């Protein structure tokens, strides 16, 4: 057998990898798609809660207190005050998502400012800023949020501030790391050679390269923010009753868990499903867009 035997040249194989990358990420990641649909479902039900909800979330149906699920008129049952659980879950999605997004916005913005300042200033300023961030990071975000609630008082807006401030630490760390990496890049030096003002260089060349990874972080942190805010409400120091908040509902249902498990179980399930969906969406986005997780182009 000689080398010439195989006269037909090996077919020029188009690498299948290349073909597969062209498929959209929705087809390549079925779990991501499913999770995205679930999360979108929550967003839609939050947005149109008044349309979907059969009852006012704070209306107390004296005739049907602690009705089990699938009671006529109350699909998911009612709680100890006779409030419709389905309606409260739908309205509760508003609070969960609103608090989550608001808190992450505050955390991301604060982290961006702190991280940029630390990464760009260097020297003593950086040291001071990063020690502040370290002290924020030293406490779990829930404990920190509790401390802020103690200072600020209760209420939906206060929860947003508290959770947002608690999230600044992790955001600031990642932003600083990205800034340090980007500012060492050649295109930053090239921009300086062109004679651009330093602020212009920061705004045009450093910031865009930091904001995209930050946006990926945001999608991952939303679920953490929702969890922390629900925990605050569960502890009874977040939003005040009778606001339809999931954490609050779980907390109220806790006492009745042995004979009316749906009171805590339904909002708990809603919370769990939303968090899992958001985590999968966040991971998918990170794996797809984070340049650190892709092989280097060149």
């Amino acid at each position, binding site marked *: 057998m000689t080398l010439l035997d195989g006269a037909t040249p090996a077919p020029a194989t188009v690498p299948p990898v290349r073909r597969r990358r062209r498929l959209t990420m929705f087809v390549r990641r079925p779990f991501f798609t499913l999770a995205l649909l679930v999360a979108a479902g929550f967003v839609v039900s939050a947005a149109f809660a008044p349309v979907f909800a059969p009852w006012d979330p704070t209306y107390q149906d004296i005739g049907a207190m602690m009705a089990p699920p699938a009671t006529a008129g109350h699909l998911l049952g009612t709680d100890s005050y006779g409030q419709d659980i389905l309606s409260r879950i739908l309205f509760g999605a508003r609070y969960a998502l609103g608090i989550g997004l608001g808190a992450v916005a505050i955390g991301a913005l604060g982290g961006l400012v702190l991280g940029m300042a630390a990464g760009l200033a260097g020297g003593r300023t950086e040291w001071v800023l990063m020690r502040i961030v370290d002290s924020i990071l030293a406490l779990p975000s829930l404990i920190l949020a509790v401390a802020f609630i103690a200072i600020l008082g209760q209420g939906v807006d206060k929860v947003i501030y508290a959770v947002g401030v608690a999230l600044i630490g992790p955001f600031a760390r990642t932003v600083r790391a990205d800034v340090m990496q980007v500012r060492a890049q*050649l*295109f930053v030096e*090239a*921009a300086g*050679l062109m*004679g651009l003002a330093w602020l212009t260089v920061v705004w045009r060349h450093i910031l865009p*390269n930091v904001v*995209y990874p930050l946006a990926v972080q945001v999608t991952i942190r939303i679920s953490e923010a929702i969890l922390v805010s629900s925990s605050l409400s569960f502890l009874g120091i977040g939003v005040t009753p009778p606001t339809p908040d999931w954490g609050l509902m779980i907390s109220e249902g806790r006492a009745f868990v042995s004979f009316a498990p749906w009171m805590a179980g339904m909002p708990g399930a809603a919370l769990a499903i939303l968090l899992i969906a958001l985590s999968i969406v966040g991971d998918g986005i990170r794996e797809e867009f984070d340049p650190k997780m892709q092989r280097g182009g060149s």
Partner: protein
Amino acid sequence: MSEEGAPIFELLDVEKIFTITRATGPLKRETLRLPALDGVRLRIKQNTSLALVGESGSGKSTLVRILLGLNEPSNGQALFRGRPIVEARKGLRAPFHRDVAMIYQDARGSLNPRMSVEALIAEPIRHFRLCAEKEIPARVAALLARVGLPADVAKAYPAGLSGGQVRRVAIARALASEPSVLVADEAVSGLDVSTQAQLLNLLADLKRTMGLTLVFITHDLGVASYLCQEIAVLYLGRIVETGPTNDVLNAPAHPYSAALRRAAPAFFEPIAEPLPGEIPSPVNLPPGCRFAGRCPRRQDDCLALDPPLGRVLPGRHAACIHPLTGSPGGPAERGDAAPSNPDAVL
């Protein structure tokens, strides 16, 4: 070559010393002085083209950083049109920024990955206010055409372009500010040979038609002789030989240039014996000539005297006590006759 024309860049005994600290024990540290450049004299005249060649570690990159004003010389003066470079760089729209453009070796890294090619090339145009806002797209298209890229590249991002295309974009961007000096750091290395040839032709063409002064850092003597009229050979932070490229390459006066010339591979010839030994560490240089340890023509006085860059022939300078000028007729007259007959000089 061209003796006329005022120097654009002038380096007068430039020294650049980096201090490095390294741990010698758990608590002890020592500070070392690392002279990356040591007594560099160089004049770069208007409309000339200069190749800076040398091994890695010879100080090419430091020299470029000094020329661009990114580093200040520790000693000596680095002048741009008669003014210290660091001073000439001050001010947002100082002429220096427009006049001197840089092409990086890592062209991809020198382009912001989040900007489209059009935005990248438009940035210097906008910054220096070279034309009205609505003429910018036409200008970008003209620059892209000038470097031989199709117009639809304008909408692409650097990540979507090939290595050769990215270099062309980097060249177009460098040209956008209408500079008079182009500093190129290994602008064609790491590309396949045909792309290299295209880029070299492009650069030679740009140099001719736009009257650019070119400073070209390379380790490829072939590239140097094709593109540059003048050459400066660097060894361990010092320029050991300068002169017209073809003269220097055909009849090197410094033994190091001769060794470099011989080390360049040629067709149908066995690869020459490489220069023995490693480039010594600049941290603790031996006394005497810095090349003495590797020099095949070393004599006793080489170990005692550190030769400065001196004139050996008209237009030729070398830092050597015993330069190679012995061949009949003199190297300067040989012009750019057929390549290399290294045996004649070594």
